[in-house]
């Protein structure tokens, strides 16, 4: 029991594994954001399929969301403003989970347009599995939000150099 507590305490304090997870998730977000920027109209059509936002709002989301993902990915990889981007990612995950869950309840099935993994032959059709996956991702970002020390990160370098105290 004590060893489990120690492992948990180690994770919360920050370990290299947590940092690698952060970088991998950052790459996933960066990839997903970049792909979505290629064809905003196609992404808009997917948002429309969810049927939870008014049609008039769809273009604005289709234009802004890919860049939020892109910057989130970039900041996670570089480890800059980790708490802020983890916060954004948690909000996104909460919204995506709710949107997918609503459509699972409605009994609908279509490509969720989440991480564009369909290009690698990985199905991302709306299902309960995606709800669970996004819940897990939410918890991972919650963990990243609470991590005290981030390896391989700009935040760490800036904190070491005391540059954050200058702002």
């Amino acid at each position, binding site marked *: 029991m004590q060893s489990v507590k120690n492992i948990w305490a180690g994770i919360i304090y920050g370990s290299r594994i947590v940092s690698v997870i952060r970088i991998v998730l950052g790459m996933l977000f960066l990839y997903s954001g970049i792909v979505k*920027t*290629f*064809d*905003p*109209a*196609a992404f*808009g059509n997917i948002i429309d399929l969810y049927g939870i936002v008014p049609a008039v709002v769809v*273009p604005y989301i*289709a*234009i*802004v969301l*890919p*860049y*939020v993902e*892109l*910057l*989130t990915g970039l*900041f996670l990889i570089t480890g800059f*403003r980790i*708490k*802020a*981007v983890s*916060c*954004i990612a948690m909000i996104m995950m909460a919204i995506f989970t709710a949107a997918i869950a609503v459509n699972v309840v409605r009994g609908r099935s279509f490509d969720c347009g989440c991480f564009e993994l369909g290009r690698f032959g990985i199905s991302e059709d709306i299902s309960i599995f995606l709800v669970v996956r996004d819940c897990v991702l939410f918890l991972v970002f919650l963990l990243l939000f609470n991590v005290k020390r981030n390896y391989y990160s700009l935040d760490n370098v800036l904190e070491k150099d005391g540059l954050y105290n200058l702002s």
Partner: protein
Amino acid sequence: MEKNEKRIIIRQALNIIVCAAVLGFAVNIVHPGGYEFIPRKKLQQGKTVSISVAEAYIKYSHGAAIFVDTRDEDIYTERHIQGAVHVPSFPEPLSIAKIAQMKEMLFSEKELILYCDTGCDSSKEIAERLYERGYTRHIYILKDGMGSWSDKGYPVE
């Protein structure tokens, strides 16, 4: 977590979202597959529709349309479709004044058929000005203009 730290994180998160929004809208302007935002007022507007001389004559004989001559004043005075009113496209101040003067008639229940000569743009310009002033229905533009009307022997004065 301290209250001040929370505030800093929220501010940083908002800054990132604002940057993403600015970046997104800036790229959208030049993106070939981007969205084009059209003013709602413009979406509600009618369109200009080309109408053949034969169809225009049917509307003329039933008194269902107002014919608007958009050519210069001297050409209009020389010869125009019988009963047509004159709203020139040039000079612009005169054109705008004429539209304002005849607004009640032009915006009446009758349809509008604009005409000029073959290959001219003055009818389109007038149509644009009418839409800018709140006209919402379709506006007809006579195909091949005054020449095709008189060639058919339809009434002129």
